[in-house]
């Protein structure tokens, strides 16, 4: 069994996500560790937001990175960033866990707004570019009407269907679908104005 020699620890910090993923796919434990260091806080925060439980979120983090490792060689850089790929896996894992353990309590507006507030673990200073993108996404979200923003968050983070959003919000399903459609269109405009897409 051949393995790629681990990249020097010093070089790992400066390696791109795609490089780290390729090294991890070839069996480089240190590269995988670096990926976890780099994306762990985002994955853990998302998992905790979805499951509403720290222990469940820890399970989700573990399962997420196992899947990242397992499917590392299948990542297609043309379709998006490693960061969003990892977060999408975390979302699916967390939603699955949340559904098994019982639905996360219905979130109120304050709770969602709190999630969009300051982080419990701001990113390291060395990741300025990533932070700018993240802050700009938040800024873009702020400019979307509240009911649409709320619908988008419930759908993309929590995995709620239009019917579930409608039930939670006390509106017809058609209204929930409209909020999702209009919200995504508004987000697109905001992201484009910030040259994020």
């Amino acid at each position, binding site marked *: 069994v051949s393995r790629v020699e681990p990249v020097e620890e010093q070089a790992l910090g400066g390696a791109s996500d795609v490089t780290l993923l390729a090294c991890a796919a070839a069996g480089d434990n240190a590269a995988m560790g670096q990926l976890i260091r780099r994306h762990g*806080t985002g994955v853990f*925060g998302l998992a905790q937001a979805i499951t509403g439980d720290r222990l469940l979120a820890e399970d989700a983090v573990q399962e997420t990175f196992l899947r990242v490792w397992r499917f590392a060689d299948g990542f297609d850089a043309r379709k998006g960033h490693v960061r969003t790929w990892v977060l999408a896996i975390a979302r699916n894992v967390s939603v*699955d866990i949340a559904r098994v353990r019982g639905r996360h309590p219905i979130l109120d507006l304050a709770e969602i707004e709190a*999630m969009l507030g300051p*982080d419990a673990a701001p990113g390291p200073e060395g990741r300025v570019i990533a932070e700018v993108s993240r802050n700009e996404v938040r800024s873009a979200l702020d400019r979307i009407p509240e009911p649409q923003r709320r619908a988008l968050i419930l759908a993309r983070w929590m995995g*709620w269907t239009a019917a579930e959003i409608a039930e939670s919000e006390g509106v017809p399903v058609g209204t929930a679908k409209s909020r*999702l459609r209009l919200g995504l269109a508004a987000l697109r405009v905001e992201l484009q104005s910030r040259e994020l897409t």
Partner: protein
Amino acid sequence: VNEAMTEFVLDIVAGRERASILDHLQQCRACAATATAGAREADLLLLAAPRTALPPGAEALIVAGALRPGADVLPPPASARPRLVATHRVLTIAAAVVVIAAAVLTGINGSGTRATKATARNTAKLDQPPRSLQGTRTANVEDGYGRRLGTAVLTTGAGASLLLSFSPVRARGPYQVALIEPESVAVVIGEAEETAGVCLFTARLTIDPSQVLAVRLTGAAGAAAAVGRFGS
């Protein structure tokens, strides 16, 4: 498709509706491009999620957990070697019947989520499988996003064999089928071809089935398309 596109890119569409959208996207480049762009925008929403520091040592624990024998399957090394040649595609229909029967008997009747909600009756069946299925190990076949695509059944008695049934999200077949052994050794056992959106595959094994940790499907592009991990 236009009406459902928003929900599709937000990844909240499932079942038949999702399948019909995927069918359309395979035939319509314009819609496929719209979906790709929309999914990229929707994924950016995930960046806005809160961040929380991992517990101390979490990174080491995750890596160690992944490396624990039998705990997980790493991508195979380049030296993965073919070692088994006997494939029997003519038995695909019979294989499908056995796969479905095994899935029902073991309580795997949908997503992993549903499996955990097995009824007491199903649990009883799982404790005492019929003689004909004793020694059978099953695995959910999942893609990189954790979507359940199908089922793999490994029979470990006399005449050990692998039975596989899955529906790829997007057809990129034929799919190379490989069994993963400890130390990430991959043993290629054949190719699964897709017919009407479904891949059925069966192979008689000449290796020790107790050593098989997982089955991995690799698409025509050479990327891992799905993995099914067998329980002990």
